[in-house]
């Protein structure tokens, strides 16, 4: 049995249903005070795939020392995580209605008091090192956990990502899997116009990692990639998932100004209709790049 194999067989309809529900939650959170909607929508399909199919995890196993880990290093994408956790029963949907209420902990970055959240990411460039620490601890216990860390592509500007990547390769931590949400836009501009990242695959390969590249919105492709792990046995793996910022809302897709979005409540019905296949909405409320 391959220790990195997906936990379950792929149920395509279920992954898509969870992703659609999670996207709806994200949009609703954007209408309750705004959130990093564009950055969240680009990784919904990745998270929906991981939680439904890849991870050995369930709402009942959150304290299980042998559970798999999902670490959201691009913490500002937390609406996608909360959307998936709510769709799968880790947290009640009603809790998301408390977005930005000071008595609760549902805000623009993950909080560890929310069931299913393993760590309070938000400051970019921390996830790789923390994931490595968790993976090394699991290995020390001969525990079979897989540790998946989801990074933004803009986050790869941070030197600490590469520092930890070097150490992970040095210690041949096979149970560490990084996923890069490669939507090609960072906060204010296209990644390739600011600090070009390509060729990302070659960079990770040169750092001693196994590398796969897939369409991050295609659950079948994601499943094929995760099923092919380890791409380089006894090395950490990275899956570069090509994605689209704002995916699921054509009116927002690939727009540099739709990173953070505050949607007016009256605009919500049109956006939800768009999500469910209706015409593209025209928004008067502004998103922002910063």
């Amino acid at each position: 049995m391959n220790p990195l194999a997906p936990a379950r067989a792929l149920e395509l309809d279920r992954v898509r249903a969870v992703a659609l529900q999670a996207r709806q939650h994200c949009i609703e959170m954007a209408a309750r005070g705004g959130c990093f909607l564009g950055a969240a929508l680009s990784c919904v399909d990745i998270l929906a795939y991981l939680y439904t199919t890849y991870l050995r995890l369930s709402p009942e196993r959150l304290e299980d020392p042998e559970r798999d880990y999902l670490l959201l290093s691009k913490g500002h994408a937390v609406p996608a995580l909360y959307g998936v956790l709510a769709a799968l029963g880790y947290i009640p949907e009603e809790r998301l209605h408390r977005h930005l209420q000071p008595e609760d902990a549902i805000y623009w970055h993950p909080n560890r008091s929310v069931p299913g959240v393993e760590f309070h990411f938000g400051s970019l460039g921390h996830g790789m090192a923390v994931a490595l620490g968790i993976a090394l601890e699991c290995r020390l216990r001969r525990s079979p956990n897989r540790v998946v860390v989801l990074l933004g592509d803009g986050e790869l500007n941070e030197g600490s990502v590469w520092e930890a990547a070097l150490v992970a390769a040095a210690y041949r931590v096979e149970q560490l899997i990084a996923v890069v949400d490669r939507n090609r836009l960072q906060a204010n501009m296209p990644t390739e116009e600011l600090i070009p990242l390509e060729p990302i695959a070659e960079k990770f390969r040169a750092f001693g990692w196994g590398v796969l590249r897939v369409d991050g919105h295609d659950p079948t492709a994601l499943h094929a990639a995760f099923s092919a792990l380890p791409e380089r046995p006894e090395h950490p793996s990275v899956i570069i998932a090509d994605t689209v910022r704002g995916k699921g809302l054509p009116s927002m897709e690939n727009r540099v100004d739709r990173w953070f979005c505050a949607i007016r409540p009256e605009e919500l019905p049109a956006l939800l209709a768009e999500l469910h296949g209706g015409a593209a909405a025209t928004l008067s409320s502004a998103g922002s790049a910063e």
Partner: protein
Amino acid sequence: MTPYESTLLELLQRDERIVILTAENRAALRNLPPLAGERFLDVGIAEQTLIGVAAGMALRGRIPIAHALAAFLTMRAFEFIRTDVGIARLPVKLVGGFPGFLSEGNGPTHQSLEDIALMRSIPGMGIFCPADEAELVLGLPSVVMAPQPFYIRYPNVPAAVEHTQEFALGKAERFGDPESPIAIFVYGFLLREVLEAQEILASHGIGACVYNLRTVVPLDEEALLNATLHARLLVTVEDHFRHGGIATMVAEFLTERRLALPVLPIAVPSRWVAAAPLAELLRHEGFTGKQIAERILAALPALGV
């Protein structure tokens, strides 16, 4: 095996949660790697990764003891300490090597003269500044087993004095009469110099009670309060900038309680210190026992003491 290494080994054997990490700073750990086996991890010259990894291990129930040079540990990795360890209050223990004046010939790049200020700005972070290796190993079990994160200034110096007083977090070690007219608060290896200064003051007929703080955080507020009842002058001595360390802590303590008392801070003004072997560095900066005594004696008339 040094006493520090033996103590770490004992702790490793006693509690399986403990792991030893380093960012290729092995000065205090030379003999440990083969004995600690898998529970020793060297991440290379990578302080941020050191802290991130320590936090990840602590999330899984471990107590990591992480080593690096004090300057790089507390400053290069500051945001990782604050964010990963501090926010989650993980029981990670940070051991800073060659702190303060103990950077000796390294110069300003290696001088951690703001580490206490930085670490005490993190909610929940304890700070342990032993005077010498004997006190380090005396206090280490309590500090390691404490549920909160701790920063430890590692003192690679000969014993200042025989430590006969029991160790407890937030409890200073006292030398002298608590009702003395002068109370001197010190942490770390400078205790040795301060005890010499205490003798010199005594030879001038001036009584001074010395408090070796041991843990700067938690601070021994009881000792400090008691000193304010009896002393007419409080002196703080530290190889740290004058702002943010114990001089500031004493001033804050007095202000919060609306107490008016002269304080003489013997600390580093806003500049880097000389790079030299410790004895010469102390002399150059005015921190030998004799110079400390002279600075106190010189201050007395102006302070009306």
